[in-house]
């Protein structure tokens, strides 16, 4: 008998929002993210994208709107960084179709946008943790057709931003990185947020990343939302202390 992981979670994520799901290990962050991404189905309840049930969209249609960056990517075979990014073009190609020039252009633009163009022909396996994560984010951008938008230093006017219709889900994107690479990923995500207007939803227990990237935070504890609001209002010693089950006084220096 499987246990319920999430209880009565209700979230509204507007276009272009940068939302962080914050919580300790086992709080249901990853499950919530998998539900949003359509990788898991809810026992009961609904996940809607533009008012439509997410499971009613075809996998390919969904993949063109929403991309997922896992905590870590471990490969069985030696693909190059470019090949990994080109895999993002999967939902844009027919069953027996080979990548067209525009697919390669999208991949190169995504590599450029994430500062990994010089790594294109390197075996993915030989990259550092931060480089790997940036290449996987490039793959997500190629998937969402957003590489070019970032390169052009798109408009600040968020209503017209190229990424407004796109969602990027990141599951603890910095959890297996050391500080230097955490900062690399952090600054890249802020740039994506600001120049593309892309909707970012990330799960993390990294308070620094949450504050730096997210405009709104959802605090998740044992499968329940204990707070949901603007980052500044939610990142308080009292709430963070409650979330991680520590004294508010101990939480204060970390904020």
């Amino acid at each position, binding site marked *: 008998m499987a246990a319920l992981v999430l209880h009565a979670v209700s979230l509204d994520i507007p276009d272009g929002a940068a939302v962080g799901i914050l919580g300790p290990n086992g709080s249901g962050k990853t499950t919530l993210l998998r539900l949003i991404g359509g*990788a898991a189905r809810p026992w009961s309840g609904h996940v809607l994208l533009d008012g439509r049930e997410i499971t009613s969209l075809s996998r390919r249609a969904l993949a063109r709107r929403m991309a997922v960056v896992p905590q870590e990517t471990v490969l069985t075979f030696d693909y190059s960084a470019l090949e990994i990014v080109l*895999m993002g073009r999967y939902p844009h190609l027919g069953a027996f179709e*080979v990548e067209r020039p525009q697919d390669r252009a999208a991949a190169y633009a995504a590599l450029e946008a994430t500062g990994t163009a010089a790594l294109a022909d390197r075996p993915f396996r030989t990259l550092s943790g931060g480089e790997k994560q940036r290449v996987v984010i490039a793959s997500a951008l190629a998937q969402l057709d957003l590489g070019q938008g970032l390169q052009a230093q798109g408009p600040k006017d968020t209503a017209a931003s190229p990424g407004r219709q796109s969602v990027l889900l990141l599951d603890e994107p910095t959890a297996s990185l050391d500080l230097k690479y955490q900062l690399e990923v952090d600054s890249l995500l802020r740039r994506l947020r600001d120049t593309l207007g892309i909707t970012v939803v990330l799960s993390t227990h990294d308070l620094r990343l949450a504050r730096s990237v997210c405009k709104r935070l959802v605090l998740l504890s044992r499968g329940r939302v204990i707070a949901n609001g603007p980052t500044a209002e939610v990142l308080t010693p009292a709430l963070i202390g409650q979330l991680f089950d520590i004294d508010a006084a101990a939480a204060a220096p970390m904020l």
Partner: protein
Amino acid sequence: MRRAFIIGLCFLGMLVAIVVAPFIGSTPIDFGRVFSGDVALADNVDAQIFLIARLPRALAAALVGGTLAAAGVVFQGLLRNPLATPYTLGVSAGASLGAMIAITFGAGWQVGGVASASLVGAILAVLVVYALATAQHRGISTTVLLLAGVTLNAFFSALILFVQYISDFSQTFRALRWLMGDLDVASYGPILAALPLVVVAFLGFAWLARPLNLLTLGPEAAGARGVNVELAQRIAFFTASLATGAAVSVGGPIGFVGIIVPHLVRLLVGADHRVVLPASTFFGAAFLVACDAIARTVLAPIELPVGIITAMIGGPFFLWLLVRKS
């Protein structure tokens, strides 16, 4: 460009091997005479040896080698395990058990023979493994698949020993020869019998090439990029298993082709399955034709089973691969 060149080179290698191998053998035949149009086939001994005695064997080697190599690629991609072989999931053990039963008890059977019995054994093994791997899980659990396959391999091996124990001496001898993997094919019949399954399997392989690339990232990451993971896994499992069953029904469980060929090809062309699959197919075909030519001649007039040659080459290569990885 380089990739197309390597696929072309492997294809050419396969053609050359198939044409050249029949000229190697105890009775020398003359190239010019074989293809001479002046003499009727009935009077042209060289052409008869080429077309009737030796070409079927070369074609069978090509079919079996290409199929095993391609199935190896697909299993390695499906299981995300570079050390998987076409035999990892119990297909060959099922096929072998079927063949053993036919050799021992099948003397009076009206239909079929060792080949069809091995195919039936292979299909039964595939169904059992599939039922186990999907019993507790939405989609296929590759972990259960691997465990079920390994367990079934061990169980079938025990049954094979049992059947061998109750066979008489000549049956045991035949069974052992079959288990070594032998391409003693002297007509086009076995090739034509296996061909439909192999063709269907390769249609599946062609569709699978790109999904297999993405499955390497893991099922969740592949799904997030729009891959229908359950469908791709099912097609990979069934096509590769049936292709393996068909290949084993022709040549017995010839070892190592399904692992060393894909690895050699990956060293040359990288990991993209759209290149690795066709290149491995052609290279595997050429490789087994060459191994069979060696097997027929190295200890002439004795003809060795080709499985001994592939094992002699494959065993050390496999070890080198393990050491190289670590």
